[in-house]
């Protein structure tokens, strides 16, 4: 029991997780659902390490296993996310349709600079940048499975196909105007 008490989480968070775990445990793929629910509830849409630790204890999953699952799927974030997420596909189809320009455009529009990530050619993996005011997060995925509509950009979980730099600019402007 002592390990449980050591996890510094607010009681209501613990109660919520306890409920979700009780509902799902034993079903196939339970861990994924539990992690997703925990992330959805988090204000910054991410899974803090204490949360992972608590879920690990509650589900009797080894810590390394839970960390492995949470880092394998690009759905899960281990860092705090901005209020709005712009997710740009860097898969092959979208790449050939110019998604690099979309990514660079979005980064410039949001004042995120172009320094990191680009140079080492790693941006197809998990690039994740958040503006200092926590309003926007720009991230990449390696294919949405919507290649026919390439290049694809996802704005707050809404898919925009055949996107251009103008589309991205307009989306950002709309979100800014709406605040």
């Amino acid at each position: 029991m002592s390990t449980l008490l050591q996890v510094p989480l607010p009681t209501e968070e613990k109660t919520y997780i306890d409920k979700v775990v009780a509902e799902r445990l034993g079903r196939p793929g339970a861990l994924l659902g539990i992690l997703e629910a925990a992330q959805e509830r988090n204000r910054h849409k991410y899974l803090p390490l204490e949360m992972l630790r608590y879920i690990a204890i509650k589900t009797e999953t080894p810590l390394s296993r839970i960390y492995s699952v949470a880092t394998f799927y690009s759905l899960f974030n281990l860092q705090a996310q901005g209020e709005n997420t712009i997710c740009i596909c860097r898969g092959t189809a979208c790449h050939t349709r110019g998604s690099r320009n979309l990514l660079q455009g979005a980064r410039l529009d949001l004042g995120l600079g172009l320094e990191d990530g680009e140079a080492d050619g790693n941006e197809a993996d998990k690039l994740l940048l958040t503006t200092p005011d926590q309003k926007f997060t720009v991230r990449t995925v390696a294919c949405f499975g919507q290649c026919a509509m390439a290049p694809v950009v996802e704005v707050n979980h809404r898919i925009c196909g055949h996107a251009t730099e103008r589309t991205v600019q307009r989306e950002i402007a709309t979100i800014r105007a709406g605040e």
Partner: protein
Amino acid sequence: MAQKKLSIRIDGQLISAEEGQTILQAAKANGKYIPTLCALDGLTPVGACRVCLVEVSGVDRLFPACTTPIQDGMSVTTNSPRLTRYRRISVELLLIERNHVCAVCVSNGHCELQSMATAFGINTVEFAYNYPKLSLDTSHPRFVLDHNRCILCTRCVRVCAELEGAHVWDLTSRGIHARIVSEMNEKWGQATSCTSCGKCVQACPTGALAEKGWAVEEMVKNLGTVTTLVHRRGVEV
């Protein structure tokens, strides 16, 4: 209940094997050699290294012997120019992925990857080296982890989870970024679930996990300690 017997052919020889066995198990039981890197007796096979590829007649694609269950009437070929080529490529890909600099490795001369490369006559590689910049974890009082030598066979992960029951290790991330991690990316020395039993070190085929205090060529692994334990625990091999 007695296992159902199946008849299969391995390299033309008729063999009777038990239902549920993998091709590798059936081959081993009958004294046939199939090269392996990630498979280890008594641990769940994962098919990570692709060195054990075999041909099954009537099917075009190759099958990893360690994870493919046998089927009645199956005819398996364990050696052919095509297989040698594919196995070679698998080993070459492992070699280019990290920094396998044998000359300065504690496991030089006692490394399964090195032996495999020698067995396939690999002295050059067809692909460009990756030269990733990877870290070393020396935080454990008795052991070291060198990501530069890791081939991600996950033998350490499985031996720790399945034999020791501690599950200190697992894989994080995907693809080229995949790494072995202890607990939640903790330093190994800080991992509270680690019992310092050293099974992962003995199970590691390369110099990625080693005991401290050894110089180049001095880390001789004792895989026997792991396999003896498997037998003693009555794990089906």
